[in-house]
């Protein structure tokens, strides 16, 4: 078994028009810039993207939106230092937005990965974001029913990966990565360093390989924040 893919282009070649794609990262931390740019190069339309944010500047997720690949975004916080790409499209009605509280977003993705079709949360009860959702009372407190969230693909940035797909993450770049690998049919992961099985101690594995389908090595990956500070644009 070897889940390694030789090139970024090969790794994203399976993603077609209209696919749902979870993209890891919280702002720039953990954003799989190289995979996203490879997807822009491929050229796709009508994606539903799940990410905590909506991109910053003109690289990464912002560039994917700017390239016209994204029809709908599911996120918690579509603001950033430079959110112009998403903002303009959203205000012009060119991109759909499903706004989800951040913890509910994380839990919905985990539920998708864990085979839990629905759960109850206190979050958003009594607010506009709970409108139309079933409500139930447990032990005298009211809760909102939320549904799982799954996707066809996940694009995730990890630190070390082995050929079985076991992963570690760097610092707080972990964030949504482990959840999105679980919740997607095909998790495509870029790793800064690829190792043989056994190269990650079994106690240190954060995402077990069962949740990962494709691994591509990208040494020295770009950091969104650095690109934006340098005024980069993609393509």
């Amino acid at each position, binding site marked *: *078994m070897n889940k390694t893919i030789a090139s970024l282009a090969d790794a994203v070649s399976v993603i077609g028009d209209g696919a749902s794609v979870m993209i890891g990262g919280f702002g720039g931390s953990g954003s799989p810039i190289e995979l996203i740019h490879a997807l822009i190069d491929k050229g796709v339309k009508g994606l539903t993207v799940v990410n905590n944010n909506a991109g910053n500047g003109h690289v990464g997720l912002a560039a994917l939106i700017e390239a016209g690949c994204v029809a709908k975004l599911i996120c918690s916080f579509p603001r950033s230092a430079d959110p112009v790409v998403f903002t303009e499209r959203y205000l012009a009605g060119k991109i759909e937005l499903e706004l989800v509280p951040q913890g509910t977003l994380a839990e919905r993705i985990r539920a998708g*990965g*864990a*085979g839990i079709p629905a759960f109850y949360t206190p979050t958003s009860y009594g607010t506009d974001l709970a409108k139309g959702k079933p409500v139930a009372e447990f032990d005298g407190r009211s809760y909102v029913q939320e549904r799982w969230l799954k996707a066809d693909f996940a694009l995730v940035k990890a630190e070390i990966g082995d050929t*079985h797909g076991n992963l570690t993450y760097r610092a707080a770049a972990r964030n949504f990565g482990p959840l999105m690998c*679980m919740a997607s049919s095909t998790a495509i992961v870029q790793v800064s360093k690829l190792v043989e099985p056994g190269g990650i101690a079994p*106690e240190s594995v954060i995402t*077990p390989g*069962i*949740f990962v389908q494709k691994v591509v090595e990208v040494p020295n990956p770009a950091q969104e924040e650095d690109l934006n500070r340098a005024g980069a644009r993609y393509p």
Partner: protein
Amino acid sequence: MTAEKLSNAQIAWRAAQDIVDGAYVNLGIGFPEMVAQYQPPGRQAIFHTENGILDFGPAPKPGAEDWDLINAGKKAVTLKPGSAFFDHATSFAMVRGGHLDVAILGAYQVAQSGDLANWSTGPKGVPAVGGAMDLVHGAKRVAVITEHVTKDGKPKLVERCTLPLTGVGCVTRVYTSLAVIDIDGGKFVLREKLANMTLDALQALTGAKLHIDGAVGELKVPSLAA
């Protein structure tokens, strides 16, 4: 001389042949654990155990056991390169979330609907369920390995389970001591049978109608040390 029926090792061997390279597999406690021994050469399955290990290997030598390194049957195991530890919630996220390719379980009864009874023989004694009810939901393919009939000769493949259910409509293939049978559209479909067994004889030992859909192959297995 052809075998009258397969040994447990031979049933396990036959089930092992259907596990593809790279499959993630959970083997039920007891008899199903034997399947791991008969992986065809060149194929590498990754075994999952409920208590939080992926890619464990066979038992260590006696005296070399690490009792923090056990499988769901509480037997000592070893690790392979590429193994991982995780907590119980993550372990059952793998199970329930559809991440396992195959679960191979034992059975008291299997119904033509795919219903499985394998956790309780009734209200006597101490009930215990473990991970059985979780495993039958989630794995992409749930297969059963079993004697074709009970010790006192009653069918284990039945129209409707009379014992408490483990899961509803969950089993898709049964490997027995006499045959390989798929469950498809609420029917038992015979795929393979022992060469020395007539269809009528097999039907007589089966508690629900065996359907034929295409060729019925010969159930061939090597002679294996018991």
